[in-house]
């Protein structure tokens, strides 16, 4: 028998699978119109202290309008699943909305560099963190989506990521092999931006889905923003394409260009100028405060945010970059 280790950190978000069954049993699964507004969705579905998960990949297919509204409504003490959380993390930290995070990748914006403000917040200890990896968090969603309390895997063992996680080692009942066990992760609220949804919340995504298929199935509540609302007939004409079925969803909001300044595959590329501006102004807290007033606190909705950053002309350029008509990346 091998020595089995256990991570030293406490599990910050875990529901017993029988409790979750009770919850999902009671969830209203009727086919009802769930159209609402960004501000209503955030007000009604996201409570201070809850644990949220953000779809997409940090700067790709992100629900920016919801993230800004969380900041604008000054939500506090949220938990976050930091599954490649880049610009999404940056926004939530800017608003001082989160106090704990299961991390796989935070602070950075991939090739763009690191967020000075997010780094300060994490290094100061204002945000309590527990270590995981991208696959680990995705498998944690998958366990929750499957309705089991854990899933086994073969990574993370032997490293400090395991040591500062809340994972456990187990022994395989068939092979005797040492495996890592990942506890199911049920976010209180999952927030996802998609290409198409109907008014009930049946959703289609074009291109990679990252971990959103699993995350939507794992979350207690799901908020969908969508590039466009389509008739349910369109969903029914191609049901193979449905990636999130309506009964998981609590709110649907049509937000054209809703992933801006993130990339929306097949539609528009990320606004690299604006993302660079974020990283730049964060170096100076005063400038950053003015920047947030201008871009988030001082604008009344997502249209105005886009307007402030170049409006239709900017969007047109990002569409042309996405379609490889003009150069950029």
């Amino acid at each position, binding site marked *: 028998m091998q020595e089995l280790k256990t991570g030293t950190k406490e599990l910050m978000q875990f529901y017993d699978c029988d409790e979750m069954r009770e919850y999902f049993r009671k969830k209203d699964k009727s086919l009802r119109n769930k159209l609402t507004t960004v501000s209503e969705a955030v007000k009604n579905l996201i409570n201070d202290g809850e644990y949220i998960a953000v779809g997409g990949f*940090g700067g790709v297919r992100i629900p920016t309008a919801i993230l800004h509204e969380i900041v604008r409504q000054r939500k506090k003490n949220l938990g976050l699943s930091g599954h490649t959380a*880049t610009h999404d993390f940056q926004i939530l930290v800017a608003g001082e909305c989160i106090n704990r995070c299961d991390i*796989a990748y935070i602070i950075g914006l991939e*090739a763009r560099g*690191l967020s000075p403000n997010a780094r300060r917040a994490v290094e100061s200890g204002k945000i309590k963190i527990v270590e995981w990896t*991208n696959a680990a968090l995705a498998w944690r969603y998958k366990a929750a989506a499957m309705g089991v309390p854990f899933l086994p895997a073969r990574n993370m063992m032997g490293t400090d*990521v395991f040591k500062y996680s809340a994972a456990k080692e187990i022994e395989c009942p068939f092979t005797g092999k040492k495996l890592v066990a990942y506890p199911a992760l049920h976010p209180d609220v999952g927030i996802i931006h998609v290409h198409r949804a109907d008014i009930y919340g049946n959703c289609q995504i074009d291109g990679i889905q990252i*971990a959103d298929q699993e995350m939507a199935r794992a979350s207690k509540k799901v908020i969908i923003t969508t590039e466009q609302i389509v008739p349910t007939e369109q969903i029914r004409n191609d049901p193979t394409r449905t990636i999130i079925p309506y009964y998981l969803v609590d709110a649907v909001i049509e937000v054209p260009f809703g992933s801006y300044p993130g990339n929306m595959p097949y539609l528009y590329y990320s606004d690299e100028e604006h993302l660079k501006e974020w990283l730049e102004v964060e170096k100076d807290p005063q400038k950053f405060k003015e920047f947030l007033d201008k871009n988030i606190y001082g604008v009344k909705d997502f249209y105005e945010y886009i307007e402030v950053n170049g409006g239709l002309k900017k969007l047109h350029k990002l569409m042309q970059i996405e379609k490889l008509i003009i150069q950029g990346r």
Partner: protein
Amino acid sequence: MSAYNSMELMICVASRFLENGATVVVGTGAPCAAAMLAQKMHAPNLMAFFEAGAFAPILPTMPISVGDSRTFYKALMASGMLETMEACQKGMVDYCFLGGAQIDMYGNLNSSMIGTDYDHPKVRFPGSGGANDLASLTWRTMVITPQDSRRFVEKVDFITSPGYLTGKGARERAGLPRGSGPYKVITNLGVLGFDEETCRMRIESVHPGYSIDDIKKNTGFELLLAKKITETAKPTEEELRVLREEVDPYRYIIGRA
């Protein structure tokens, strides 16, 4: 022979290790350029996975995110992150490319933090992302990194991605898949590999213009020497042409050197 910068050299050298028919998970930057160069030079059948779910795209330009739309442009499959990770876990993927703030003699990588107290790091970095996953689950980890003794350290402050951990057999004892581990570390000075008996890092080739001593001086631990140490072959005219004209015409990557 054209002049070349160190980034161009590292990309060319890395690309030569990627044989035709192999599978690789690539990130953004140099690894992506190395994979594209290999495909255009000698390995048209080198198949690239991206961590967020793309498989076998025809990359039109350098992606800035491993999840952005470039990574599945004209791809053969646009799936999810676990499709890639589980392909790795099943043993389907030969190579991954990683980097880090620190690396030790066993190829353990740190991309999490500098400092000794987890709760009060001196410097905090992004963390694993998919790095631990790829280092654990693909067959061979490749590293492209500049070489200096603050980076090549006796002991990393935090093991984010497993190398050979504490030496031969340690990965297997820890529970990691059998037979996997670090393969090559490609720096601006040379190519480092790993001794089969001890799993310690060793010098295998030295780039033109540098010496074994240059490599040793820029390394914070004792390096072993391969039985035969060669001089790295310079980038060929054709490699440089393809890299500069086709792979990275806007010098996103090669302009960084």
